[in-house]
């Protein structure tokens, strides 16, 4: 009976998610799929990494997402001289009380926009590691909890650009999804050129969702049915990634869980109460794209990205 009630509530509210997608689409033109993936990632309680060359709208997307979701957010511009304390906070000696008092860093908010995360040194990047994995930070030996929900939306430039420190695998693994925007198609780009200034538009973006709504969507993840048949498919995919010899590392169990959660969230976003292979395929490139690499001497044609290759090679059972 709970399930049926859930079905009613979620199907009603899915329109709210669509509203959010539409609202963002007004700012980021022609990128509906990427926007849906971004929202999927947040419903699945995951951190989002947006990667692309400068100037395609990464930061704008991150800002718009933050506003539409109605979360309190802090933006951190990562630079090569940024230090961990700049993110986490620092204890300052208070002259009046004669004691040290803690000044919270920008990490203490619902949403952090980590702009150009790979321009900071690995040391600073790692400061976010504990925060992302455990929803807590340890500063000067004291563990402090972060607010709920806690998201990191990070943007980064492709690793081959000058002045970047590539994120280590362990750090990458903390992100549920990595999405790429790519160039808009010509009609969308034309609309962009015709339209208003994006910075101005950002100020007018309304908060479509409230944090409680977001949390209720996260909770409804449990009600999405995952059949044995789908789990078979997932395991076939993971097996292939591990044993085909095409990839440096196979997918980890954490990656498997990430795929399931993301696929469930994608199903919710598309008003499904069960996960279909299509849902899984839709989220797979974003979820495993940053976790899967071809082996250098792989014989497979490398025109396909590893995740795409994976999808095409594994039959749906």
């Amino acid at each position: 009976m709970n399930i049926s009630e859930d079905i009613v509530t979620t199907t009603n509210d899915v329109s709210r998610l669509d509203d959010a997608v539409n609202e963002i689409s007004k700012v980021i033109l022609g990128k509906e799929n990427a926007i849906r993936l971004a929202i999927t990632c947040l419903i699945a309680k995951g951190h989002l990494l947006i990667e692309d060359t400068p100037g395609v709208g990464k930061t704008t997307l991150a800002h718009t997402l933050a506003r539409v979701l109605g979360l309190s957010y802090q933006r951190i511009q990562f630079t090569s001289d940024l230090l961990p304390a700049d993110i986490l906070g620092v204890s300052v000696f208070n002259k009046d009380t004669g004691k040290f008092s803690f000044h919270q860093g920008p990490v203490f908010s619902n949403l952090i926009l980590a702009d150009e995360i790979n321009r900071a040194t690995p040391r600073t990047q790692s400061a976010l590691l504990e925060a992302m994995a455990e929803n807590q930070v340890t500063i000067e030996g004291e563990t402090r909890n972060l607010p709920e929900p806690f998201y990191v939306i990070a943007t980064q430039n492709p690793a081959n650009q000058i002045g970047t420190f590539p994120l280590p695998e362990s750090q990458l693994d903390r992100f549920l999804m990595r999405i790429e925007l790519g160039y808009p198609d010509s009609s969308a780009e034309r609309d962009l050129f015709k339209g208003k200034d994006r910075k101005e538009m950002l100020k007018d973006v309304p908060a479509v969702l409230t944090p409680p709504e977001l949390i209720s969507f996260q909770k409804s993840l449990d009600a999405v049915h995952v059949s044995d048949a789908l789990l078979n498919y997932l395991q076939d995919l993971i097996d292939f990634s591990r044993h085909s010899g095409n990839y440096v590392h196979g997918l980890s169990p954490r990656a498997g869980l990430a795929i399931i959660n993301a696929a469930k969230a994608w199903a919710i976003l598309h008003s499904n109460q069960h996960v279909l292979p299509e849902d899984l395929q839709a989220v797979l490139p974003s979820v495993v794209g940053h976790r899967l690499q071809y082996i250098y001497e792989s014989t497979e044609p490398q025109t396909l990205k590893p995740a795409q290759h994976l999808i095409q090679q594994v039959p749906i059972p």
Partner: protein
Amino acid sequence: MNNKHLAELDLNKLIVLITGLLLAGLPHWQRLPIWIPVLHTLLLFLRVYIPFRYAGFWRQASSLIGFSRLVIMLLGILGVYASYGSLAGRDVGIALLVMLAGLKVFESKTKRDFYISAYLGYFLVITNFFYSQTIPTAAYMLLVIIIMTASLVRFNDVDESMSIVEQFRYSSTLILQSLPILLVLFILFPRVNGPLWGLPEDAYTGITGIDDQMTPGTISKLVQSNEVAFRVSFDNDIPERSQLYWRGPVLWKTDGRKWTMGKSADRQRPEPVRFSGNVIKYDVTIEPTNKHWLFGLEMVSAPPEKTHFTQDRQLKTDEAIRSRKAFTLLSNTSYLLGADSFDDIQRALVLPDLYHERTRKFAAELLQQYQEPELRIKAVLDWFNKENFIYTLRPPLIAGDMVDEFLFNSRQGFCEHYAAAFTVLMRAMGIPARVVTGYQGGEINPIGNYLIVRQHDAHAWSEVWLNDKGWVRIDPTSAVSPERVNQGIENSIPDLIIDMPLDLEHNAYVARLWQQFRNTVDMVNYQWAQWVLGYGPERQLLLLHRLGFGFIDWKKMTIAMIIFIGVIFLSIAIFIFTRPPKTVDLAKQYYDIFCKKMAKIGIQKMIHEGPIDFSRRICHSRKDLASDVNSITDLYVLIRYQSSFNKLNDFKNLIKTFSPK
């Protein structure tokens, strides 16, 4: 269903449980005060009806319902106490169980309540064996157990993917799978002598049988019962029917109406007896009587183990017979029974003072006429024979002096009337006499070649003391109705047609078939009794010995039992885990047929293509197939990815009828 509350929607889950409970309690109904089954049924009904009609009330008024069930429980317990005058004992326990089982279902709201109700049901099933251990009872109870198990299957079938038939099949399979364990436990579970735990005293009240006293009507009441009293298998030939007197209680004392045993003669030196002729060896398997008498063929020469003679040669067991028991006895049908002392013989002359006036007068007349005791006896028997005495099961009710009225007015009676009147007459003539009760005759079952003695073979006769012959058996009934002794009760009383469904007297063939059928049924019952109910410690040892175990004690038996059960579970586990896993399920198989059909018309499904994508691609190129393909895909997705397996049949049909061109 991930919440634990049973809402009104779950009525269809409860209905099988309720049926099971009703059927489990049904055999008890006749034994219970009428209000208990009525309350039980009413509570079960209300549990279905109230949530159905007044769902909102049911949900909101839980405190009111909780209070009312408390009141019902207290009133019910008071009622049981009022009906039985006690709160202990077998019948009371069952009355409480039936009432509370109804109440438990009535209050059931959670999963736990449901399970408790179901387990109460299983318990209720077992209690029926307090009253009856026959094969039909066992079969009926097995059926109820299947229903109860099906109710559990149904309850746990959360997404309602099974039809009711499948649920029952599943339940039956479960029961069937438990059979090997049942057999091992039955054969190897160590048996101890007697019941492991004492049954309450009243557990044996319903048992019919010969008692230690006789009033007009006691035996004729017994004769209406078709129950088996005991079975006898003879080592050699079965003796003649007229020799088959099975000796039971011997009655000495009369108060004019009732015959009793008088002073206790238990555990005294038995009357001396001199045997002649052949020894007859036979096994008596006696049904539980809750009494001590063991019925042996007159006259038993020596008591077997755990039995003893009374002074007047009644054979009694040391412990009351509370379960079916078998004894091996030795008898001689020709014997001389002596007396121990002159006092005893004097006891056999006592008549109550103010009774039997006319009988005494009549006795005085005979006394004048005949000198020898033998002649006097013969005169009385002849008189019974000549006068218009009628042997009937339904004599008229006699008021006043029982013997006088019977002998000189009504003249209709049953063996107890004749035995009592004859004995009184003898005593009045100064011949010591006593009444012996027991069974006479029996029915030979040619299938298995043994003798069945039923309650309707109950009989009463006399023993008179003749100075030179000792105690001599005289059966006055045979003077009135010689057929009773020579042919058995069924042929001697026309108004006694025992469990004949039709009047078959005129159709000999059908009657013979009927008799054959009855014999077969009794044979099966006999084996059931011997090997299932009578499977006690001796039989267990014997069987294990025959199976090659040697004579093992209960410790080794327990170890063997554990090993056997372990082996059974292990083989089941091996069977399950070594079978190749089911890689392709049915929905997938049907869907593959669909894909093949599509491939034939040139649309090939790619291996990595999901069903929705495939259907979209088909619809894109073949708009005419869109509706069929969509409905197939929708169903497939539901079955495969939402686990709605109950739609499998629809899906199958859809695939079969789908033929794209």
